[in-house]
């Protein structure tokens, strides 16, 4: 996933001569990452053991990081890897390991979910896909169309969106404390944060 960035960064190569070749190259990369995404997603649903689902999700996320790179969002790609794949999913795997979650049981707890929810989901998906395909046109997204340079992102994040940013930091703090309190055994010393 790192090889593609080389082209837009290295000054030695005359980008002008590359464009046509890049078109197909770009599409190929998109399709391969997309294939990983789709495959991972389907596997997530198909697998009955949560650890397999978790690994599929990690694959999806890594592939999505590749898609972000294609879209020129390098920083988002890196954060996707670090935060999602590297931290959030580790947490999932950790919990699966901790609780020693076994295979899923095939209980029939909800007819509504199958009889109403699944058709509803299908209907809305088809509708949305139809709208996207039919009406949103096929404007191309060029490679490196958006220089998602960390400096620009920092400017937005720490200047224009400073207040939301600070609020999310408070949110994170609250979430940490909530997690500590919730996960601690009732009455144990960990409940009262040492």
């Amino acid at each position: 996933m790192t090889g593609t960035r080389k082209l837009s960064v290295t000054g030695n190569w005359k980008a002008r001569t590359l464009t046509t070749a890049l078109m197909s190259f770009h599409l190929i990369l998109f399709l391969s990452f997309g294939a990983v995404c789709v495959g991972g997603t389907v596997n997530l649903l198909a697998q009955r053991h949560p650890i397999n689902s978790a690994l599929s999700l990690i694959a999806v996320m890594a592939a999505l990081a590749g898609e972000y790179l294609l879209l020129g969002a390098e920083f988002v790609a890196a954060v996707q890897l670090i935060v999602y794949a590297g931290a959030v999913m580790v947490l999932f795997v950790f919990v699966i390991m901790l609780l020693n979650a076994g295979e899923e049981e095939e209980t029939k707890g909800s007819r509504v979910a199958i009889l109403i929810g699944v058709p509803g989901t299908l209907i809305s998906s088809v509708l949305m896909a139809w709208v996207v395909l039919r009406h949103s046109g096929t404007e191309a997204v060029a490679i490196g169309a958006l220089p998602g340079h960390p400096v620009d992102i920092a400017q937005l994040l720490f200047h224009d969106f400073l207040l939301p940013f600070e609020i999310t930091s408070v949110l994170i703090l609250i979430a940490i404390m909530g997690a500590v309190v919730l996960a601690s055994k009732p009455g144990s010393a960990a409940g009262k944060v040492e």
Partner: protein
Amino acid sequence: MNADVNLWLIPVLPLAGAAINGFLGKKSSRQAVTTVALSFSGAAFAMALWVAARFSSLSVPYQEFFAHWIRSGGFHADFAFYLDPLSLVMLLVVTGVGFLIHIYSVGYMWDDPSYSRFFAYLNLFMFFMLTLVLAGNYLVMFIGWEGVGLASYLLIGFWFTKDSAASAGKKAFIVNRVGDFGFLIALFLLIKHFGSLNFEQVFGAVTGLPAETAGAGLLTTIGILLLVGACGKSAQIPLYIWLPDAMEGPTPVSALIHAATMVTAGVYMVSRSHVIFERAPIALTVGAIIGTLTAFFAATIGIVQTDIKKVLAYSTVSQLGYMFMACGVGAFSAGIFHLMTHAFFKGLLFLAAGSVIHAVGGEQDMRKMGGLKAFIPWTFITMGIATLTIAGIPPLAGFWSKDEILWKAYQVSWVYWLIGLITAFITSFYMFRLLYLTFFGDYRGAQVDAHGHGSHDRDAHGHGEPHESPMVMLVPLMILAALSLVGGLVGIGNRFEHFLAPVFGTPEAVEAASHGTEMLLMGVSVAVALLGWWFAHLLYCSRPELPQKIADSLGGFYQTVVHKYYVDEIYAAVFVKPLIEGSTRILWQDVDRKIIDAAVNDAGDGARHVSDEARHMQSGNIRSYAGWIAAGSAAVIAFMIGMWMEGR
């Protein structure tokens, strides 16, 4: 405009005192409570004196903006204060008399367990009264207006464990509501038609109205509604009934609130609105008639009362009637003059009465008094001065102010004058009757001991004889007596009127021809007063058996008067009972129970039945919820796409 006067401090000082005593007083010593109460009210008085001293250097009217309050569209009302000669007079009366009564209360209330509460209320009253007096617009005035009502309610019901006191407080409050209703509607009309409640703007707008339309409809309506408000507060017919009952409160309260200051708020308000009234002659006439009738009517009731405070209460109503009469005939400055002198002598009368009650251990019935002048000489002297004053014996204060009113009334119509004169005679009579019954003759009361009046037993010291009050009570009496003696002198040569001229306009030059008439009328009224004195002397001093005979001979009429013309009973039958019956039978049992309650119950039952069916959707299974959400979002998306397609 001198911004350094800091007018706002005058009301706020007593408020601070009230807050301190109200919140901390319970745990403080009496000395501390006394210090706080006296220092804050004294500071307000000192400040008022200081303002008065600087008054000539101020540009009048002096206005002080304090803070924005309501700003809604074009309408705005601010916390603003307003000082002109009228409010200055009121300011001095309220703070001065108020301060004296504070001092007096220290002695009178010393043994009461709720000492700090009393002073908290008293200071609170001062705050609201000063707000009322200094208000720069009708809305701030209304705060004070309602606030003094509240303070009055709290203080009438001060001994709230006593049933009669509690219900007297409620009565005062409720009757006042009727008047406040009129006042409020008048304010709404002012807002609607003049877009403001600021005195200056309203009066400017009223003055600007063309003369021919001015008197018509609107101003008359506003004037009469304002009068209704004033009648409630100042105890005029038909809303006077609360004042005699208000005597259930401690005597200093009766002196301060129900004689000297609060009840005169109506007069003050009418005088303040004189611009409106001067252009609403019908309203003025109504005011004059009400005042005259009240003066006469209350005086007649006063004759037969045996409770010393009740006599004074009816006397107050009667005197307030005089003031209304003055306003009604357009003699606002005479009304205010009488207001001021009345504050002195009626405050003195009540305080002296309090001293008497104190002396005889809580007894208020005059038939059980008598011969007290030997026991309590200072009280007797001061009360005697007050009686002479109210009776209108020259050169005491009451003479000047009452005569002024009668003279002005005569200029408008001799009817007012005549009734006023008769009232003056009755006043003189019942006041001297009070004096004779209380201080002359033999002591008819039981030995003063612990069998005092119910909750008044704080006065019962278990000693043998009536005794003079402590100095802390006597000094205010003496000061007020001095003021009653000389207070009228400010009115000589129309000085008072000239002082108020910036407010009410320059008095017309008295025609030389009528000067003789004035002197004649003066003589007549003095003669009438002396006649009343003589009559009282005859009945209650020389030949004490006569009153009973007269009463017997009058029979039914006497009974009617003793029962205050059955006004309370009539009101009960005409207003109160239908109200209670209607509320109980129709509103409660029919409307509330059968319609409102039933609707609520049916709604609840319906909701429960529907929920009973619908709760099956709430299976507790997350996936089912998700299924519903998915189906719902599908519907929403389909709908939105449909709308979007239609819009294309």
